[in-house]
């Protein structure tokens, strides 16, 4: 059995286990490549029946328009209920406060938790992969969260064989990561093998970019030029889809999925290191956010 087939089978098993055992699961869907693959595998897990749970997106209000359009189109094509938890709306209501650096990454967490509580979701599927980051490398497939959505890395439930334990008391929940054992290269190889449609931002094209702190940002409605900055036209693509104001592009000529696979196989820097201004805060940035209830 090829390793991609083995990974897909493992993920399907996880989806079915959650659907069978949890009361109200929901899949976190952003229109990013990991959540696209996750949704694709979920569809396979229950075919010919439809996916038996809704999808939710925490919309920071700073997303690429194309990604939002993709999100809406897929949810409606699959006949899924789409729950949108809006960070902008939470700011307007005074639930969270805009951070001085313009990143809405951290303030997504209370918005996510509020929406999950309102919908009484007891299991949230996330597209997190263990190869992404060191704190994620230690997280369970079924990751227990207390009533405040907090992760306690030192006190995780043992996870033995594929005998997952999703038992929770009211108010508690499980984050489930069906793609735990996939790597970035696996994601792309799978997108290629399954011919999955992805937002075109993932593919290289000539884009107007500005260099900032050693990273390339495409000029768009969220990235305005600062005094003294100049732009140039470069062939770039995105490796991740975070907020449009803080997600950098990488120089690339890979304008097809096959070429992206080749490029990823050869590339020597992690996707978060390359493109996420919001992850560069400290050695333990992800661990700290996850403890608070982040994805």
């Amino acid at each position, binding site marked *: 059995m090829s390793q991609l087939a083995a990974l897909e089978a493992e993920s399907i098993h996880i989806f079915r286990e959650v659907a069978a055992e949890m009361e109200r699961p929901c899949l976190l869907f952003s229109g990013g490549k990991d959540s696209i693959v996750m949704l694709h595998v979920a569809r396979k897990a229950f075919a*010919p*029946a439809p996916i038996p749970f809704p999808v939710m997106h925490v919309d920071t209000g700073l997303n690429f328009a194309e990604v939002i359009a993709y999100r809406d189109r897929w949810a409606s094509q699959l006949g899924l209920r789409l729950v949108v938890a809006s960070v902008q709306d939470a700011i307007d209501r005074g639930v969270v406060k805009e951070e001085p650096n313009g990143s809405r990454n951290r303030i997504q967490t209370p918005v996510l938790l509020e929406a999950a509580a309102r919908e009484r979701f007891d299991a949230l599927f996330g597209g997190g992969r263990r190869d992404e980051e060191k704190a994620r490398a230690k997280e369970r497939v079924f990751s227990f969260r207390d009533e405040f959505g907090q992760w306690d890395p030192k006190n995780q439930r043992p996870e*033995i064989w594929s005998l997952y334990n999703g038992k929770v008391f009211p108010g508690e929940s499980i984050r489930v990561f069906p793609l735990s054992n996939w790597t970035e290269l696996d994601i792309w190889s799978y997108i290629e093998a399954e011919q999955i449609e992805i937002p075109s931002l993932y593919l290289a094209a000539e884009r107007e970019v500005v260099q900032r702190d050693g990273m390339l940002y495409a000029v768009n409605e969220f990235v305005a030029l600062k005094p003294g900055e100049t732009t140039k036209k470069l062939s770039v693509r995105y490796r991740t889809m975070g907020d449009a104001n803080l997600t950098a592009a990488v120089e690339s000529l890979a304008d097809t999925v096959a070429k992206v696979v080749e490029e990823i196989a050869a590339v020597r*820097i992690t996707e978060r290191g390359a493109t996420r201004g919001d992850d560069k805060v400290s050695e333990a940035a992800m661990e700290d956010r996850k403890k608070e209830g982040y994805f």
Partner: protein
Amino acid sequence: MEADLLRFATAGSVDDGKSTLIGRLLFDSKSLFSDQLESVERVSRERGDEYTDLSLLTDGLRAEREQGITIDVAYRYFATPRRKFIIADTPGHIQYTRNMVTGASTADVALVLVDARKGMTEQSRRHAFIATLLGVPHMVVCVNKMDLVDWSEEVFEGIRREFTEFAARLRVRDLTFIPLSALLGDNVVTRSATMPWFDGAPLLSHLERLHVASDRNLVDVRFPVQYVVRPQSHENRDYRGYAGTIASGVLKPGDRIRALPAGLESEIASIDTADGPVTEAYPPMAVTITLKDEIDISRGDMLCRPNNVPAVMQDIDAQICWMDESAQLSVGKTYAIKHTTRWARAVVKQIDYRIDINTLHRVEGVEGLALNEIGRIRLRSTKPLFVDPYLANRQTGAFILVDESTNRTVAAGMIVRESGS
């Protein structure tokens, strides 16, 4: 040929250089990213380390970096053109036996690290014991820090002899020894020039070539029903499929099957996937099976062949590893038990003995089992389970216990034999 998947678990004590070995595998197989390496080099430099401390790559949590220890199982990934590897990196110190059990539970190979200067220790014995208890089919003993014993063949052979003798008391099916230096890279990815006396393969080539496909049980058909697929749509109104992952055996359309616990028989009409029907299914494929006859089957039931069925029983003898620090296993207490896709409750009837994992001696007359203790117990479950001995079937021989007052997973269990049959 398409690349396949190999899962291996590493175990070693704090100072055996396990994390360094993993760092070396990632680094020399070019699976390490430059920003990861930069960050490790920076921290290492700031601390004044003589060499870049590759263990910083795997110890991800704040407390781990602060204390210089590994707290929890960390999963790492790398690939060569032949294989994708999943490493379960488990800490070696005594209080974390449960993590080693976790890592070994899904592993095809166990890597046991031995410090060449110290030779076999209680820890190496314990690691080897846990790997065999968890039925890991292959074991590789990495005799590390050969640079510190002048690359001595004599030292290596001494450790090999002692370990082989010990392993004979366990049931290690496939045992390999490799002398190496994780720090300097000898015999990790490339053959060592300093140990010409060693004619075996370096670690990575060994892992690339290891044959693991035949480790799976392809004889006994066991299909735990995980989820019933009923589309309720107009076009698929009559579709009723039993979704699940093949635990063992090979299934084909037209095969006669028996459904447990009802005992009713039918014939496989089709084996479906989202990509269309398949002509055979084997582990670990996830499929949906439809039957010729409409019989009542639900999650937790099991499909098998009429002439090859697991034991259907409520009295379970098992080795268990206790994993909870807040309470001990005690006789008379009832736990939730999860076996394949089936939940029940089970009461602990007796503790036969505890195993001293350093001496492998049985300690009888014990009252309970505490964190990281391993012992043999008897359970009585509220409903029948469909079980095989763990040594014959890692899927249908395994279970977990959950404490219903905390919902914590408190034990991993391996069924020893079918009692009462």
